[in-house]
């Protein structure tokens, strides 16, 4: 399936989308760019700690509603630049959770259980302050309550527990290193909450660095991450997570992320970035040409240690 078709078929105005990866790693960048090119609006983003793909979707005006734990990009942005502006301007609706809470919510969704208990966050504003209004809580795919508190029925001392509602997004986006030609997905390195998000979702789009033979991917199935029958679209897109990193294939592009941070500071600069890097390229191939062959090779990872040693990251 082509990237264009995958996005057209599975992401609509108003879709609830789970972004894979974590801040500067394995963000579904190529899909995010295509969402922007297709001018899809009113997305409801659900994620734990998101960086580049999240910020660019927010900045491009594709996002209406967010449930998240963290919007930042490591040392490249202590708070995601366009996210911060959008919240301060009141352009998006935000509900805050923590990373443990969000990952447990995806876990619950993946297990088809309606909620999951947690012992995190008692007496914090994560529980005391609700971002979503009562009206929003009647919307499709929005939990009726932010959380519920109860007494542990198995504890004779009556300990308290927080119950977190499961998440089952419309679509989960995953950028993986390998997909077999049978559809089996293999993520190398940290999986973050990608596996839980994909299992929880109604549809899954996987972009990958390489499509490999079934005979290879099934030789050691202990290493695989997702079965074919949960995957709706597979698109081979080398460097599809650029400018974020993809372990074993490439490092993050520090120069590009610094440029983004600089350009994203004001509206005109961000517009220019979008025009140049997203709307000004027709597809992923043109994007790769724009980075340039030497740009790709500069960040190419050592295939054993997984990143580019000695890369200039200032």
């Amino acid at each position, binding site marked *: 399936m082509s990237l264009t078709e995958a996005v057209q078929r599975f992401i609509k105005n108003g879709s609830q989308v789970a972004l894979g*990866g*974590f801040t*500067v*790693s*394995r963000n579904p960048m190529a899909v995010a760019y295509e969402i922007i090119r297709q001018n899809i609006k009113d997305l409801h983003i659900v994620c*734990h*700690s998101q*960086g580049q793909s999240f910020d660019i979707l927010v900045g491009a005006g594709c996002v209406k509603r967010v449930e*998240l*734990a*963290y*919007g*930042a*990009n*490591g*040392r*490249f942005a*202590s708070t995601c630049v366009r996210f*911060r502006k959008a*919240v*301060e301007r*009141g352009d998006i609706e935000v509900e*805050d959770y*923590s*990373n*443990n*809470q969000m*990952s*447990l919510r995806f876990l619950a969704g993946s297990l088809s259980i309606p909620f999951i208990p947690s*012992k*995190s*966050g*008692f*007496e*914090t*504003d*994560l529980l*005391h*302050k609700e*971002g979503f209004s009562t009206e929003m809580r009647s919307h499709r795919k929005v939990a009726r309550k932010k959380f519920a508190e109860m007494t542990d029925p198995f504890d004779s001392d009556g*300990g308290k*527990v927080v119950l977190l509602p499961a998440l089952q997004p419309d679509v989960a986006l995953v950028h993986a290193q390998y997909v077999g030609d049978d559809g089996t997905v293999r993520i190398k*390195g*940290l*999986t*973050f*909450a990608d*596996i*839980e998000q994909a299992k929880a979702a109604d549809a899954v789009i996987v972009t990958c660095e390489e499509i490999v033979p079934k005979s290879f991917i099934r030789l050691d199935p202990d290493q695989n991450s997702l079965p074919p029958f949960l995957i709706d679209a597979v698109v081979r897109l080398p460097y599809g997570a650029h400018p974020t*990193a993809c372990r074993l294939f490439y*490092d*993050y592009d*520090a120069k590009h992320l610094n440029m983004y941070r600089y350009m994203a500071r004001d509206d005109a600069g961000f517009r220019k970035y979008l025009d140049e890097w997203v709307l000004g390229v027709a597809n992923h191939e043109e994007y790769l040409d724009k980075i340039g062959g030497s740009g790709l090779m500069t960040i190419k*990872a050592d295939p054993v*240690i*997984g*990143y580019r*040693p000695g890369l200039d*990251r*200032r």
Partner: protein
Amino acid sequence: MADYTEREMMAISAGRLISNGDVLFAGTGVSMLAATVSKRIHAPKAVVFFETGGIDPSLDELPMAVSDSRVMHGTCLNSGLVESFSIVGHRRLHTIAFLGAAQIDKFGNLNSTCIGDYHHPKVRFPGSGGACDAASLASGVIIFMQLGKRRFVKKLDYLTSPGWLQGGESRKEAGYARGGPIAVVTNKGIMKFDEATKAMYLAEYYPGVPISEITGEIDFDIDVAGAKESSPPTAEELRILREQVDPQRLILG
């Protein structure tokens, strides 16, 4: 000041608070430095891990984010968030979390979410990430903060991560089985918390820093009666920090 920077002193001071065998939950920035320093200098048997799921990486190069591929190399296990938070809160482990924040109050509660009203904030920060969870579940928390009256505040604009809540027994009563802040490592000195009241007090001021320079940057009353001067970083501590931990000065600046 002497021939070392505030950041260097902060990283080394935090490292000194770590015991061998501790399991360290590290964030980005100075907290990453401190974890690495602990492991390299003060507590070689400490295990550093990241909320992203990377456990005990070799850290040959300094990661610039907790999702950096550098936290996935040489680890004993590459997993994910569900796994990593099960480690933070594991009753068998003595886990210490390094956290930063935008605001802190007298009881070590932290704000990393926003300034102003939550629904219409003047300034939006990244949010909890794993901070609320680490502050809820870890055996102890070490906080990094630059001093400043807008940072050391009487009342947080938003309570993201629980410290000692309202002090005394309130943390326990709220439902937390363990944990709470141990120390606040600032650019000029180190604060700790009274065992009974859980109120912050000045434990150490860095060599040559007058106490008034510290209290002048804090917007609540703080006990300074027992404060002592810190020992300066040793030559060996500085050498390892500069040559091995952050030779590119990515975080040391």
